């Protein structure tokens, strides 16, 4: 079953209207751009002559015709036309539905009723234009290129810049220079210059006499040898080897990783790097939310660092095994163990114990001296009796410096760094989670607040919190953020 003729006729009428409006739209755009082209052509009226006016008119005509043709020939989908008809005549999508369903084999008997109903409504319609005229943006600016083109066609040709670049060759005669120069001083100067013939730059080969006493052997890269080596005067300058060396140095710069990192010893350690990465990986997330791929990468990196002389390689390997077995919790524990070991080693290195230098030697010597004298050196000191490094105990030499200054070096790390002391621990080594006075908490603030925030959001979305308290809770956490 095909849609009845009045319905298809309505769709065709609307299609024609759409084409006309589209042609108008595209024609105006074509006219605008044609006029722009015509104005450009008329700018060159001088060199082009009378042909420019013909070309300009042709450009405008081509623009208009191209637009009209594009608008008229472009296909209009019957469904689109049906939608337009439905909207314009308030037919509640009847025409579009009939067009789609009338020819379908699976149509229900209600479709026949729909066709009959739509036919009755369409036949009752008074034909009118329903597609509105839409002018393009270019229509507003169309007078500008048209008037410009008209003005240019009526006005005299635009003067074009002529000639080429000034000739600086000295072969010109004096008379010509005299005509151009205005001031007498300049004239004199130019005359004087003109009388002196210009010399061409020439490369000359020169032989340098060899200095007496020269000829000592030098090694490449020995800068001092340049000043010592007087035999250089006996050589011709070798530009090729100079360029070659330059190229090699540039190539060296491309391999930055092979260059020594002069700052790494002072500003970043492998522990800090790994610590930051582990923080970025785990902060505020539960073990099941952590990306296993990233955790694996971190553990691999730790294991690689461990192979270079660390003791945490085994832990990292254990963590990777746990991760492969899908046990993220265990992997995280292993990572933490390895991190602790790295931290211990880092602390040991920072305290000077790992360095071979004067300080250790001094201390060793003092220790030995003290040992000889019946006392103990610093290396052999036992801090296990609640003395030593504790503040206020009097005997602490504070070899690591002020703890607070070290801890607040980064805004994110407010936990206690370093290992806890061996031996008895009295109240100083507690896992305090509350607000500490001058003492740092062991928990990472951002991690903890992230967890609490997540729990709070879960509680609210599960409707465990009365609605009246939502604003208060939200304000509280927002205040924490601002702080």
């Amino acid at each position, binding site marked *: 079953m095909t849609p009845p003729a009045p319905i298809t006729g309505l769709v065709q009428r609307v299609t024609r209207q759409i084409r006309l409006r589209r042609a108008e739209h595209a024609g105006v755009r074509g006219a605008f751009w044609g006029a722009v082209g015509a104005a450009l052509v008329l700018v060159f009226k001088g060199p082009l002559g009378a042909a420019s006016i013909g070309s300009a008119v042709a450009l405008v005509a081509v623009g208009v015709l191209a637009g009209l043709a594009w608008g008229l020939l472009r296909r209009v989908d019957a469904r689109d036309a049906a939608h337009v008809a439905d909207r314009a005549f308030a037919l509640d999508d009847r025409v579009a539905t009939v067009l789609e*369903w009338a020819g379908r084999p699976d149509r229900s008997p209600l479709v026949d009723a729909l066709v009959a109903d739509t036919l009755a409504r369409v036949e009752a319609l008074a034909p009118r234009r329903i597609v509105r005229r839409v002018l393009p943006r270019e229509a507003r600016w169309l007078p500008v290129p048209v008037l410009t083109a008209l003005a240019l066609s009526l006005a005299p040709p635009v003067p074009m810049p002529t000639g080429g670049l000034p000739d600086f060759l000295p072969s010109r005669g004096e008379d010509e220079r005299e005509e151009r120069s205005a001031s007498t001083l300049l004239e004199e100067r130019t005359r004087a210059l003109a009388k002196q013939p210009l010399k061409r730059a020439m490369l000359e080969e020169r032989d340098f006499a060899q200095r007496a006493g020269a000829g000592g052997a030098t090694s490449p890269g020995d800068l001092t040898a340049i000043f010592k080596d007087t035999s250089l005067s006996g050589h011709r300058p070798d530009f090729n080897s100079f360029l070659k060396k330059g190229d090699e140095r540039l190539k060296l710069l491309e391999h930055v990783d092979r260059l020594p990192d002069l700052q790494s010893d002072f500003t970043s350690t492998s522990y800090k790097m790994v610590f930051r990465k582990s923080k970025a990986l785990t902060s505020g997330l539960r073990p099941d939310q952590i990306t296993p791929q990233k955790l694996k990468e971190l553990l691999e990196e730790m294991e690689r660092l461990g192979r270079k002389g660390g003791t945490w390689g085994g832990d990292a390997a254990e963590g990777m095994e746990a991760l492969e077995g899908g046990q993220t919790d265990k992997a995280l524990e292993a990572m933490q163990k390895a991190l602790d070991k790295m931290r211990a080693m880092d602390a040991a290195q920072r305290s000077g114990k790992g360095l071979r230098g004067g300080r250790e030697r001094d201390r060793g010597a003092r220790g030995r001296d003290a040992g000889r004298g019946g006392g103990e050196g610093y290396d052999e000191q036992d801090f296990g009796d609640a003395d030593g490094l504790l503040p206020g105990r009097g005997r602490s030499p504070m070899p690591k410096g002020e703890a607070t200054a070290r801890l607040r070096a980064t805004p994110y790390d407010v936990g206690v760094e370093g290992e806890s002391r061996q031996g008895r621990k009295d109240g100083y080594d507690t896992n305090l989670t509350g607000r500490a006075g001058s003492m740092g908490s062991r928990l990472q603030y951002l991690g903890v607040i992230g967890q609490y925030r997540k729990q709070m959001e879960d509680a609210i979305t599960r409707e465990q919190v009365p609605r009246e308290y939502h604003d208060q809770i939200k304000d509280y956490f927002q205040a924490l953020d601002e702080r």
Partner: protein
Amino acid sequence: MSQEERAQAFVGAFRALQTEVEKVIVGHGEIIAHVLTGMFAGGHVLLEGVPGLGKTLLVKTLAEGLELSFSRIQFTPDLMPSDIVGTNIIVEDADGRKHFQFQHGPIFAHILLADEINRATPKTQSALLEGMQEGAVTVGGASRPLPAPFFVLATQNPIEMEGTYPLPEAQLDRFLFKLRVRYPAIEELNAIIDRTTRSRQVGIERVMSGPTVLGFRELVREVPIASHVRDFASTIVMATHPQWELAPDVTRRYVRYGASPRGAQALVLGAKVRALAEGRYNVSIEDIKALAAPALRHRLILNFEGEAEGVDTDILVGQVVESVEAASVERREPFLQ
């Protein structure tokens, strides 16, 4: 009877039933129409509103207007599943022999009013699930079909949430529509006072039987829908998903989970009933827009931001529909608008 005549009969029956209910219920014309739409679409309806707005009366009146069995369950915290579906009891016959006999619960009715459904425990609420979805209940290993048509009208109170058990999302999704019964205007309130404080009771005529309802349900499904109208409905449902790449900003900001495919089914089925009830044989864009809120408001789960800011899901759905419509207009050529 031709399909056209059946469609005309549906229009007449729909309007007659609406008129009968409106004899008792004042000022809830849209709610009544949506309840009837849900019934003819073959779904279940959840009515939400504060006490005293006539939710229960609406359902009772509707049941009186239909030649169908009706039962009411007042949900309380100590209600058990067996109180709803029934249980096997031991009976003794004339010979003195004892055997189990199934005692039908109140769910075995055509129209079931589940009053204050959120006051029962989740276990009891879930006893309704199978019946609502499958049209049958399983007791003692035996599946027992419910009478057809089976239509659940549940009510719940949005205040006094203490001691209630909000319906889980899975159960909410089984309701075709969630309707919000609002407070009447002053004129409507005056009419309520006039009608309910007189001695004369209004009589309700029975205008439709069970088989008629079932016949109309089949007829509704034959209403054709154009592909662009169907696309509009599915785009609205997709636009409620924050993960969808074309989701509007309002969805990304406030929604945690969007509507399920059941939401799209509810939207289109409801639109078919609405079209037929208005005397049309096809679904229009306007039908979809009119039913977007009842079909989708209970299927959106707000995120923390939405909950904390008290975002109204009706407004949210309205904004989603507007954004979908605006996007479709933007995609069209100016001559095609």
